[in-house]
């Protein structure tokens, strides 16, 4: 079976662009803190979600709704409503990370398909099967800490489908288990759906060099004519011991295009593209590229050579943890 391409849609226009470009599946979120890309100007209100899901279905694509932050104590009802409304909009599945929410969805919407978000960082077959057996989860998005052989080992034991990231932003920390952002800015992926938020970013031009501060901490400096990556904490420039540099990760983004055959061999069902914050033109280009790749693989033809680097952060790419040496 052809591998499923799961594409980001930060706006209704991006959703349409992804579907037109050949996305088998799109994923999106409501315009509030229930989703992990709660960025200014992005996401879907209730009417847009119904229309978006309808548009995807009309064109033979599936639509998933990510409700993948951790509900705030005392305000769980906001997240519960998001699940109710996603179900009502006809979404093909919801992507959840919080066990309390999984339980709510399983109990109140028994017909609704559940995917486990990468934010749950389920990194071995035991916990994956536990989620499947406890909540009826049908698919798990694997954290970006695993190598291809480890993914193969998980699939050999796991009772559910797996989905892996192949392109876009790269978390170097286990997803959903990082509070670097709230330590520096007060806002975190888990609680607020933002990491290194734009509201706390400050750029300063110092004689052609571009300094980037996050929450008052200078975490990147780009010399004149050097690429200027967004100041994400884990990809910042720091010093420790006698060294200064990108101690956690270089400002690279993930491109596992050339690993698609191995991932298929490893039993992966779906390939996920990160980037709900990116433009519809970006989404369309990436989707077209990956759709061509999985179609070529299915037809037994060589993969088209990737030309996506310029769309990437800092214009350098990595295959991340999929190759063991990354660690």
């Amino acid at each position: 079976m052809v591998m499923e391409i799961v594409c980001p849609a930060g706006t209704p226009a991006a959703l349409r662009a992804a579907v037109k470009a050949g996305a088998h599946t799109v994923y999106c979120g409501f315009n509030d803190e229930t989703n992990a890309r709660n960025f200014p100007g992005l996401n879907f209100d209730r009417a847009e979600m119904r229309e978006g899901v309808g548009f995807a279905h009309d064109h033979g694509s599936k639509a998933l709704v990510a409700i993948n932050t951790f509900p705030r104590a005392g305000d769980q009802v906001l997240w519960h409503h998001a699940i109710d409304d996603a179900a009502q909009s006809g979404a093909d599945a919801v992507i959840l990370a919080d066990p309390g929410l999984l339980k709510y969805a399983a109990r109140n919407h028994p017909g609704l398909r559940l995917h486990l978000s990468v934010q749950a960082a389920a990194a071995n077959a035991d916990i994956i099967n536990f989620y499947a057996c406890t909540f009826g989860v049908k698919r798990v998005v694997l954290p970006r800490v695993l190598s291809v052989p480890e993914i193969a080992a998980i699939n050999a034991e796991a009772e559910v489908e797996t989905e892996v990231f192949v392109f876009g932003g790269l978390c170097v920390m286990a997803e959903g288990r990082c509070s670097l952002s709230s330590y520096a800015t007060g806002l975190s992926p888990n609680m607020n759906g933002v990491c290194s938020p734009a509201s706390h970013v400050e750029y300063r031009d110092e004689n052609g060099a571009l300094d980037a501060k996050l929450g008052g901490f200078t975490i990147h400096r780009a010399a004149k004519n050097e690429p200027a990556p967004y100041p994400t904490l884990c990809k910042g420039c720091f010093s420790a011991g006698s060294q200064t540099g990108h101690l956690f990760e270089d400002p690279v983004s993930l491109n596992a295009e050339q690993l698609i055959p191995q991932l298929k061999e490893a039993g992966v069902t779906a390939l996920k593209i990160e980037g709900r914050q990116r433009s519809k033109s970006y989404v369309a280009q990436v989707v077209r590229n990956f759709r061509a790749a999985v179609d070529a693989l299915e037809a037994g033809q060589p993969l088209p050579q990737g030309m996506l680097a310029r769309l990437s952060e800092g214009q350098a790419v990595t295959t991340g943890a999929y190759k063991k040496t990354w660690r």
Partner: protein
Amino acid sequence: MPHTQPQIPICPAALAKLLRLTPLVPVSLSLTACSRRIANRHPGLFRRLGEHSRKRFILDPADLPVVLCLEPNGGQPKVRALRGRSEGDARISGPLAALLGLVHGTYDGDALFFARDLVIEGDTAAALALRNAVDDAELDLSQEIAAMSAPFSRFLLRAVAYAQRRTGVSLARPEEEAAW
């Protein structure tokens, strides 16, 4: 659409020079009229700005001697063309072609930004909100302008035709979208 981003065209000096002499009041009035029309036809654009819809944005085409000051004004937008440096909550600067390419979805804002073809200063969140809202609106500036009533449309259309001829900067959405 090609897989890689094309080289961004720069406005030729002749056009820039011409703009140095153009009276800016009619330009401002035309642009405000155009933005009002967009606001009527794409209310979602201003809704998407949310808390940022009362901010002031400076759009600075680095290859032109003017800047545009955009005040979304909660859906009653106002645009002024100004010479010299002017203050706003957020400033987005880059070649005119890059700014227009953003509007038309030819370019990806993040990619332009990473490559430093686009520079954001001030309120980064507001700039991001504007970019995301515009990206969703699927605007076609040449259509918006053509549909405007005279005299503004006549003035802008002349400017647009001239600009396209001299720069190769497209003021219309790429064909592909329409053809689909």
